[in-house]
């Protein structure tokens, strides 16, 4: 086992909204009335069915309530044992699933206010991600600007599977706002299910959808790089959350090879894809999709050709590792320090800012 060091940052924690009714106090009269009159049910995304084994580690699963819905559990199971200074909350409540952009906007605003009040106000270590109604760029920018006044929001959160590839110019005002406000864009596993979860159609199984997250991250990285997001926004950081990372070297070898062949198609891509990834893209540590032997994993780290790419994460309460093995076995103390402290601080400039607006 590799021990965590004190003072790190857990970059992927998932506080759960107990039920849609938990958001009622944060909705205005109109939307509160809509939820109750129309008999709306809880927005549980099928990405993480509550009882699926991957949705909660067995020893972290509460007897009742949704996994991740209790702050005391999160402290005892994640924040305290890993001795972190900060934990970044990425709520995965299904607010992006609804098709009405007005309703999605109302739910996102309520979710962000709920996170502030129910979590950030209650533990000084916690930081938040701004969940945005991605269907409306205008409303997304407004929500980013509204929440960013509170310096405890350190990132903007989007899902890896949505309506359009994320590099599309349509989304760029979101990236401009994030860059201006010192917020990385976090892209998290999950889908709004407006498109099939694989590029070859609808599979049959939950495990298939979950495995396919890694391929969705790959196509999004291609889109972000070749559309020129980082030529336009060179200081924007994007963080791939719960993406896996062992696919990265081979993916980049392929992308680089094709970029050399057809770069005339996207002449604004002014640096090699590998360089863009090194300067602008980061990955959360969990899940580690690798064999348990340290030798292979260390070869993979060598294939990645950079020790600045990974950010410590537990993916709490999802089941990615057992016992105290949040950090993979056999990695050097130097890499542990980079993953736990240096890399997250270099990625999230707002961690250094005073807590309150």
């Amino acid at each position, binding site marked *: 086992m590799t021990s965590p060091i004190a003072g790190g940052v857990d970059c992927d924690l998932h506080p759960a909204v107990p039920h849609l009714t938990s958001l009622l106090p944060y909705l205005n009269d109109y939307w509160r009335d809509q939820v109750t009159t129309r008999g709306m049910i809880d927005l549980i995304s099928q990405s993480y069915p509550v009882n699926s*084994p*991957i949705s909660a580690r067995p020893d972290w699963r509460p007897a009742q309530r949704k996994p991740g819905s209790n702050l005391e559990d999160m402290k005892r199971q994640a924040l305290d044992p890993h001795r972190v200074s900060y934990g970044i909350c990425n709520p995965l409540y299904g607010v992006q699933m609804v098709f009405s952009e007005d309703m999605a906007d109302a739910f996102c605003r309520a979710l962000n206010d709920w996170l502030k009040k129910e979590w950030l106000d209650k533990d000084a270590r916690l930081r938040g991600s701004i969940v945005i109604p991605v269907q409306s760029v205008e409303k997304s920018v407004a929500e980013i600007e509204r929440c960013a006044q509170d310096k405890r929001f350190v990132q903007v959160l989007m899902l*890896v*599977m*949505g*309506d359009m*590839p*994320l*590099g*599309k110019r349509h989304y760029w005002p979101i990236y401009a706002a994030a860059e201006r406000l010192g917020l990385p864009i976090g892209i998290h596993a999950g*889908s709004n299910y407006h*498109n*099939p979860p*694989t*590029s*070859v*159609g*609808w*599979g*049959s*199984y*939950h*495990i*298939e959808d979950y*495995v*396919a997250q*890694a*391929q*969705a991250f*790959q*196509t*999004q990285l*291609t*889109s972000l790089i*070749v*559309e020129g997001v980082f030529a336009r926004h060179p200081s924007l950081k994007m963080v791939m959350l719960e993406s*896996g990372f*062992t*696919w990265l*070297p*081979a*993916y980049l*070898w*392929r*992308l680089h*090879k*094709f*970029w*050399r*062949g*057809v770069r*005339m*198609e*996207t002449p604004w891509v002014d640096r090699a894809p590998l360089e863009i990834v090194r300067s602008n893209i980061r990955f959360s540590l969990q*899940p580690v*999709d*690798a*064999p348990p032997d340290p030798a292979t994993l260390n070869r993979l780290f060598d*294939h990645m050709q950079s020790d600045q790419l990974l950010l410590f994460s537990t993916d709490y309460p999802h*089941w990615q590792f057992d016992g105290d093995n949040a950090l993979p076995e056999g990695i050097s103390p130097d890499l542990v320090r980079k993953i736990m402290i240096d890399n997250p601080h270099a990625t999230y400039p707002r961690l250094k800012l005073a807590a309150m607006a």
Partner: protein
Amino acid sequence: MNVQFRDRPEPASSVSVKTAIADCDIHPARATATELYPYLAKRWHEHLETYGKHAYQGMMEGPPFPKAQPNASRRDAYPPEGGPQGSSLSFMQKQHLDPNNVALGVLNPLNTGQGIRNHDLAAAICSAINDWQIDKWTAKDSRLKASVVVSNEDGVAAAAEIRKRAGDANFVQVLLLSRNVEPLGQRRYWPIYQAAEEAGLPVGIHAFGYGGNPITASGWPSYYIEEMVGHSQCQQTALASLVLEGVFERYPKLKMVMIEAGFGWAPSLAWRLDKNFERLHSEVPYLKRKPSEYISDHIWWTTQPMEDPDSRDHLLELIEWIGWDKLLFATDYPHWDYDDPSRVMPAGVSDANREAFYLGNAKKLYGLA
């Protein structure tokens, strides 16, 4: 890899002293639009001229993502007698088969009946393509072997076509594309796997295809490079579907070849499948073994476009993880991203591994050893 501006001297002679190789991905083309007509009923000539192919994707020939060069093929591969690249046997012999000493060339025709919504038309074109492969190619050059092209969305018709070709030494595999209406593990495709297993033919899954699904899980991207890179993600999810639906449990003698989709992603995908299988086994209880075991027992990989890391060691480690016995050399002739057999292999590989990579694995897999 892009040879479009490279000056290529004429081969001095058709007699080569190079070591013999297999090329497991050659794309033969038709010289004219009507070259298939002798193999198609008259009804279909009229149908094609009146209604076209009516595919699952607008503009199947590619304009939504214009290729980087005409027909996605080498500019130096136009035959002197006219017609598109890859449409002349004599020029293919002179430019590729002879100088590179290709002892076995596997034909994978594209732009066939696959991906057509009218399933009767699809089946008719596929069968015509198979007859055409014999007449124009394999009967005239014994180094070349054909793939049984099948009507991919109609499992029953596809199985009938496979049974019709079973035992015919002109054919060494069944050809599917990676992108279909549904992921390839779905039951509508099982008759294809059953017939292939019975016929003792491996199933090649070539990158590309037309199933109507966007080439990302978030809709259609903008650029040709996204389509080209994206084929590897399509292949990954198609393979995950084949494993997780239990295709290899049901057809234990089935062999598959992943063609032109890269192989670098294979270890990471297998690790990810294994890790999640450990936790989610109860959802797919018919799987008796770890996903990585099905992959290592049933899957072969063609090499082009070969992964190209800066470090030779990284490539060699990657190949060790997959196995030297699982790679099949391919050039993708006449396409633009052709891999030159004299340039892909790093130094320091043993003679046995080199021989397996370039020829031995292919001969064994295709039953020609």
